[in-house]
């Protein structure tokens, strides 16, 4: 008797899992926007009870791989796909939809010193091991009147592959030719110096534990953990401390020369108040979706994400998209066939 009940309930559960399967949309990719994606898919499901979107935060590289292999309906990435990656998918063309924005901030551990200012070249030289001491003339020049100690700098970077590292190294490549030729930009690079910590929490922990160290973390992580961080000199020559407004400002500055496919790096963007180490994060959507129900759900979701969805961003510490970018993206939705 008990067995029978067990079997019936087992069958019922498996049927429940299979039946709405036709409507379930699966996505995978970047971990940085995962919290807001989960929230968005949840809210969207409340508005459209028949639309079920699952998201696995397995990393940008994994998202692109799974999309290429056709095991998910859409991908998500913190760095735009390269031309070769796009060409590798022959069945359709991949559209990039920026969803929210984030920033990466320098964080350091110098007892008694707060609100340091960094120029891009100085950061590049520190992370290359060229600047070894905190009282280096380059640091003194940017921070007049600050009592910088004669201590060795310990550099801390991410050890795991990460979109955060991509943005950070992409910025350093733009402001320092030496960095560009010797190190370059990627989710993992061949670091000239320093210790590696796993994840934002690993870098933050090492910086906190090690006196006279410097590292970099996501703006969201720094904000949520109330960590101090430095200002960075932007392309207009002003020192800007990262916050949601200055990050959104970077996208607005870059919006004028935005390519039609949205594959753009907005580090070191023009704009007097723009924060220079900012980035989009993208949803990767096929431009041809055969299943009509799936297509409708995805299109509806994109519409909603660009309008009401953006309102949820700031509450979760993400910077929302500037209006001109939203307007351009709404046009791109029409390309989904």
């Amino acid at each position, binding site marked *: 008797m008990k067995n029978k009940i067990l079997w019936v309930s087992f069958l019922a559960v498996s049927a429940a899992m299979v039946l709405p399967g036709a409507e379930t949309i699966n996505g995978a990719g970047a971990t940085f926007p995962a919290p807001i994606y989960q929230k968005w898919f949840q809210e969207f499901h409340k508005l459209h009870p028949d639309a079920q979107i699952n998201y696995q935060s397995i990393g*940008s590289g994994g998202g692109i791989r799974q999309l290429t292999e056709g095991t998910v309906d859409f991908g998500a990435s913190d760095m735009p796909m390269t031309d070769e990656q796009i060409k590798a998918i022959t069945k359709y063309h991949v559209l990039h939809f920026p969803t929210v924005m984030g920033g990466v901030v320098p964080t350091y551990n110098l007892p008694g010193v707060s609100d340091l200012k960094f120029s891009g070249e100085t950061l590049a030289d520190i992370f290359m091991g060229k600047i070894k001491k905190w009282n280096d003339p380059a640091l003194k020049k940017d921070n007049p009147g600050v009592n910088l100690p004669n201590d060795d700098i310990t550099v801390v970077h991410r050890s795991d*592959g990460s979109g955060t590292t991509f943005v950070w190294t992409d910025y350093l490549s733009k402001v320092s030719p030496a960095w560009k030729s010797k190190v370059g930009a990627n989710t*993992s690079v*061949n670091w000239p110096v320093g210790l590696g910590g796993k994840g934002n929490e690993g870098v933050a922990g090492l910086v906190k*534990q*090690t006196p006279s160290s410097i590292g970099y973390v996501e703006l969201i992580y720094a904000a949520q953990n109330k960590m101090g961080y430095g200002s960075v000199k932007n392309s207009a020559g002003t020192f800007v401390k990262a916050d949601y407004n200055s990050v959104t400002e970077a996208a607005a500055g870059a919006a004028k020369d935005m390519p039609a496919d949205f594959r753009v790096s907005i580090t070191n963007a023009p704009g007097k108040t723009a924060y220079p180490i900012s980035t989009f994060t993208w949803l990767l959507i096929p431009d041809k979706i055969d299943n009509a129900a799936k297509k409708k759900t995805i299109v509806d979701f994109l519409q909603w994400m660009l309008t009401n969805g953006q309102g949820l961003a700031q509450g979760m510490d993400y910077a929302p998209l500037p209006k001109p970018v939203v307007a351009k993206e709404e046009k791109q939705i029409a390309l989904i066939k």
Partner: protein
Amino acid sequence: MGTAVATAPPPSQARKLTKFWRDGDQITHLVTFIFAASVFVITVWLVYELWIHSAASRAKFGFGFLTGTTWDPVAVQFGALPFIYGTVLTSFLALLISVPLGVGAAIFLAELAPPKLSNACTFLVELLAAVPSVILGLLAWLSMVPIMRQYIEPFLKHTIGFLPLFTGPAYGVGYLTAGLILAIMTFPFIISISREALLAVPREQREAALALGATKWESTWQVVVPFARLGIIGSIFLALARALGETMAVTMVIGNDPAIHTSLLSPGYTIAAVIANEFTEATGDVYLSALVELGLVLFGVTMVLNGAAQLLIIATTRKGSKRD
């Protein structure tokens, strides 16, 4: 016995019964053979998969992969030597600490401790062996790293800092800290298995030694331990395997720097750690297959070290029998 013969079934039936039992033997033989063969199949399958998926990297770097010291995802240039070095060095450090500690503790628990204490300790040891490595990693991260940086590493630098092994800044993370956490992880295995092996030594061996006038210590060290030698060595193998493959705890405290340093205080990297760190975000075929090839290299390193250890056993066993 007599009644059993009287009630035995007629000869023809008896033959059937023996035939059935012989068939049963064959069935058991077959079933257990399949179970045993699965070990072989899984190993071959694993190597095959690693071999296939590392094709792009093997084609590009050849044997240079093993000797290369650059790990540069941007320039698509990969070499495994810093990772091999880090893996072998941290495992060696771990065994250097955990073998004397573990074997010593096992001798105490099996030979010298009162049974109640021995049982209580064994329970704790088995509990410790079951702790997930990420939890030990947290312990290392939260308490060992600061202690190493503030006290132990400066102390080592002041006292034996003239050795190249103890130079450079004290970061708290590095080969030495990774070796220490691996020692903590592996010594419960050594204690637990060595103690079992020591307890399995027949009582007569001890009694004979004592009767010949040996002290308790002489009987333990010269009779009981050599008798249990194979079990103790087996426990060291298991410890080595765990140390070589450990990922989470190591990556949290080793500093993740793909370079070769002589100083034990310097940050380094291990094979398992780099695979775990970079696999999810690896883009590009060569990058991905280089990570898979690292898996193949780890498999090779494990095999070579195990083989070397086997040879060591054979050598020491011969020496032992000669002395006898």
